[in-house]
């Protein structure tokens, strides 16, 4: 199973990276493969390719703003969450995601 996610926040110096860390930790705890693209003040890091997005089992956008290059997700079922939802309750978010498969 493979999860791909994009995290982004308005300033790009805090929540983008915190949300990415929280998702990665939770996925590793569950032995689930995950790749998280961060869109912060440093620009796009760990970028997801269209191929990775299409072939993923779960796609997540965790953001309080419109993300860059959103068109990559066009036609794919994508789950949207706010940064706060992920930071406060990542277990429940992950349960919801995994139950969609």
């Amino acid at each position, binding site marked *: 199973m493979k999860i791909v996610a994009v995290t982004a926040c308005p300033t790009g110096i*805090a929540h983008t990276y*915190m949300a990415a*860390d929280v998702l990665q930790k939770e996925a590793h705890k569950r032995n689930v493969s995950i790749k998280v693209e961060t869109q912060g003040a440093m620009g796009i890091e760990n970028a997801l390719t269209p191929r990775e997005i299409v072939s993923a089992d779960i796609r997540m956008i965790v953001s309080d703003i419109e993300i860059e290059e959103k068109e990559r997700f066009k036609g794919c079922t994508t789950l949207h969450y706010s940064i706060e939802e992920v930071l*406060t309750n990542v277990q429940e978010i992950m349960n919801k995601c995994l139950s969609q498969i």
Partner: protein
Amino acid sequence: MITTRITFVLEDNRFAAWQLNELKQLAGYFHSLFVLYNITRGKQANLNEPLGILSLGSCRHDVCQIAIEGLDSELACMVLTEYLRDHSSLLSTSHKQNFQAKQLFTHHSSFKLPFSYQWHYARKALYPDKNAALATLAQLASSQNEHAIHQQLADREAISSTAIPGGIAIPHIISEFVQQPTFIIQSLESPLDWNSSQCDVLFIAALILPKAFKKEYIIAATRLTRWLINNNVHHFILDADREETITGILLHVMAHIDP
């Protein structure tokens, strides 16, 4: 229960076995519980278990803290403080203020950031509401541009609250109204509603970075925020009883700790 804390920088490449035996012996004179935290490594062990402490993998210039909990912890703190003063660089102790800490922050590599910055600290700040707190943060950041910075902080909060789990708020902006990275650290006298679904805020770590930012600023800021998202570290700042403890730990995190 009384808890006292001693925070220090390890100057040897590890805890030597003889040193651990001496610390164990000293701890044995008291009834309190002694826990050693290696803050740099994110690990902990009881002080009376030398093998446990050796397994922390401590290295030179790691920042460590000994927390002493028990009825005789104040006396134990005095004794261990004197020992650690001789065998490490003492950052802070509950026992008394460390006036040499400021020199450590400017000269010791454990705390030195690769850029100049503004640092403001206040203990037990009291605000009627979140907006008043943001106004004070803006005023501290730049008295000439306080209204503009206040608006920027409020605009950021309007998108989503910057409170994070554990009673901590991290208001942060990139602003053309500051020339240097500005860090404003405040513990609060009473819990403050930060317009979040989470518990009220007891600690504020505000980050205001200049518009003409460098990569080093972002690295330091993200190190701090990523460290703060870990529930296991909140007690280091929420329970700290001295300014130099909080300042030292936060500077060390920004200078060195990659999650």
